[in-house]
């Protein structure tokens, strides 16, 4: 097999056994790799009804066939498991360097099974794989854990780790790698914690063999050229990072403020990518083989130089908590990375707590001991509560369950701005109808990277769609969702899709792997993956009534700003979407659809 390492590392933590297996080539053909192939393994190997924190759940860390190759942004890996936040299938994606190193060590995938009797870490140096005692690392923050392991294994070793949040089963805990890159969403870090696995160290010396070296060279060069010449990937993202979006989204009046109570703020520019570039930015960061370099490095007020916040984080802690202070946001971001927390869900959960406080559900005496306020706009609060969530301390213990369970505990679940219990990201769907449909139907719950329709509805890529219209959006949602499943499964960064199209991904896949995918068959693989995830969720007991949005977004019009007066028209969109997907009117994939997709 070209592109693929062809091997899986299966580690049973209960019995402390390590097995190397051949990758299932037949499945790889149908499900590509990465997100798709790991979903297939999970689907076949666990009962979707399993309790996410039980030893019967599995945690799969997977690369794609293009991970570790010379393909631009080919450094991605994914964490696939059953989510403790949503109960749905989780697939969290991260860049950095760990994924490429794992591949270089000779593995496409690690499957973690069972539960270690005491804290362990896993050390992988090519064929030498060991389960090691991690008592000395347990309780440590992510940076220190990473430093200690690098001291032991050398600087070339790449480290994936959880922080204290994952250890304490915080349902919004992330898996971190290379210090501050995160497989952030759906609480995958807590599943790793439930297995008593603190970290994985990878060091590899094997290359990835490709089908036709000259062809790969030529195809890669031509795609890099497209990426470099594209104004988004060649100019906007490198210059300003993802926070370039702050002003754009705000000027369209879809920038959620105060837990989605408003959708516009006159203060947005204080926390924009433009302002970041002029103030706290010290340098840019690129993941493995990435010509885009959207990552930011910033200097905090206390002098620390750390990974800077992404757009989503600038929003979740910024406008969503009404804190227009880049230093406080960057500090909250830093503590998320240290404790191993998802910045979207953590910021959004704090915002939900702030609204619970504002509405009188949480009273002053309840938080008196915590010594922190829950007032919108308090910069100390966003930093302080982040740490308390990471430690499960005081009210932070309740917040560690995520915004849905928090709001439900106070009898106000409607104040959680989530879908399938996962916090929504930084775009108010009322002013972007297609994007809202993707929120409602995303297989991992509230999420923007399962079909980023903002690209078409706001940026006009690949073509401009009327953001307020429902016309054609069901079809667009399907194409975006299926194409995203392809890109994730290849092991490339989704941001390449601002410049590249389906044909480019086909070229790259075929050049590296020597396969004969066409645009049609590769996109069909994406559709297959999407449907398989759906089946997992249905079997897990997530019925289609959960394909919905928070009540506020369906019933309360946006109160002010450029998108004033609109609600999300989900009920106009959903029946059409089910039809386009080949699902019955209740939202279950039809027999004939599964047959067509060979599932």
């Amino acid at each position, binding site marked *: 097999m070209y592109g693929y390492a062809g091997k899986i590392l299966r580690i049973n933590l209960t019995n402390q056994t390590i097995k190397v297996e051949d990758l299932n080539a037949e499945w790889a053909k149908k499900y590509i790799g990465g997100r798709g192939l790991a979903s297939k393994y999970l689907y076949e190997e666990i009962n979707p009804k399993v309790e996410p924190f039980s030893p019967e759940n599995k945690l799969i860390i997977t690369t794609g066939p293009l991970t570790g190759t010379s393909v631009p942004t080919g450094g991605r890996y994914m964490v696939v498991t059953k989510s403790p936040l949503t109960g749905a299938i989780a697939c969290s994606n991260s860049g950095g360097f760990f994924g490429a190193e794992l591949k270089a060590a000779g593995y496409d995938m690690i499957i973690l099974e069972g539960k270690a009797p005491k804290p362990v870490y896993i050390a992988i140096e090519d064929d030498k794989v060991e389960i090691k005692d991690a008592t000395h690392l347990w309780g440590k923050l992510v940076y220190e854990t990473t430093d200690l392991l690098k001291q032991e294994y050398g600087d070339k070793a790449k480290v994936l780790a959880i922080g204290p949040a994952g250890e304490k089963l915080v349902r919004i805990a992330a898996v971190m790698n290379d210090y501050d890159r995160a497989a952030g969403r759906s609480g995958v870090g807590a599943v790793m914690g439930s297995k008593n696995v603190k970290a994985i160290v990878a060091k590899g010396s094997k290359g990835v063999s490709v089908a036709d070296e000259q062809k790969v060279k030529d195809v890669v060069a031509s795609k890099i050229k497209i990426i470099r010449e594209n104004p*988004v990937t060649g100019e906007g*993202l490198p210059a300003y*990072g993802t926070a370039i979006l702050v002003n*754009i989204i705000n*000027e369209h009046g879809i920038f959620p403020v105060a837990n989605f109570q408003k959708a*516009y703020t006159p203060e947005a520019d204080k926390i924009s990518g433009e302002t970041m570039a002029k103030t706290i930015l010290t340098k840019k960061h690129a993941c493995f083989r990435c010509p885009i370099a*959207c990552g930011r490095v910033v200097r905090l007020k206390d002098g620390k130089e750390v990974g800077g916040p992404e757009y989503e984080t600038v929003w979740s802690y910024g406008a969503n908590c009404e804190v227009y202070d880049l230093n406080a946001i960057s500090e909250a971001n830093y503590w998320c990375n240290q404790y191993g927390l998802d910045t979207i869900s953590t910021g959004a959960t704090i915002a939900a707590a702030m609204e619970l406080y504002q509405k009188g559900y949480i009273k002053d005496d309840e938080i008196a001991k915590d010594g922190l306020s829950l007032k919108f706009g308090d910069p100390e609060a966003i930093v302080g509560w982040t740490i308390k969530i990471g430690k499960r301390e005081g009210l932070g213990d309740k917040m560690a369950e995520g915004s849905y369970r928090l709001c439900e505990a106070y009898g106000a679940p409607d104040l959680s701005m989530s879908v399938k219990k996962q916090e929504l990201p930084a775009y108010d769907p009322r002013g972007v109808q297609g994007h809202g449909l993707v929120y409602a139907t995303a297989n991992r719950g509230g999420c923007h990277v399962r079909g980023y329709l903002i*690209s078409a509805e706001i940026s006009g890529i690949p073509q401009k769609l009327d953001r307020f219209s429902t016309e054609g959006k069901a079809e667009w949602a399907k194409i975006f969702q299926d194409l995203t499943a392809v890109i994730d499964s290849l092991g490339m960064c989704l941001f390449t899709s*601002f410049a590249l199209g389906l044909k480019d991904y086909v070229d790259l896949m075929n050049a590296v792997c020597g396969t004969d995918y066409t645009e049609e068959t590769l996109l069909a693989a994406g559709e297959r993956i999407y449907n398989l995830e759906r089946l997992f969720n249905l079997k897990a007991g997530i019925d289609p009534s959960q394909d919905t949005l928070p009540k506020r977004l369906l019933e309360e019009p946006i109160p002010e700003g450029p998108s004033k007066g609109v609600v999300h028209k989900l009920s106009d969109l959903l029946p059409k979407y089910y039809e386009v997907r080949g699902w019955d009117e209740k939202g279950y994939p039809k027999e004939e659809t599964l047959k067509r997709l060979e599932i």
Partner: protein
Amino acid sequence: MIKVKLFATLREGRENEIDFEFFPGINGRFILEKLAIPEKQVAIFLVNGRDYSLDEPLSDGDVIAIFPPVGGG
């Protein structure tokens, strides 16, 4: 008066916000010309938060936001 807000790379060498005196018939194309912004650098042209044509006349009090091609996430 018409308020024009510039973003991202369009700010390079220009103010972030510029006010224009209103006159009947003033439109986006006139403003781009005055600001020396080539049309191909403009991906999003918003008037009061809504997409708008460069040729259509503006109204007194309009707020304009101009963006180069951008994406993120």
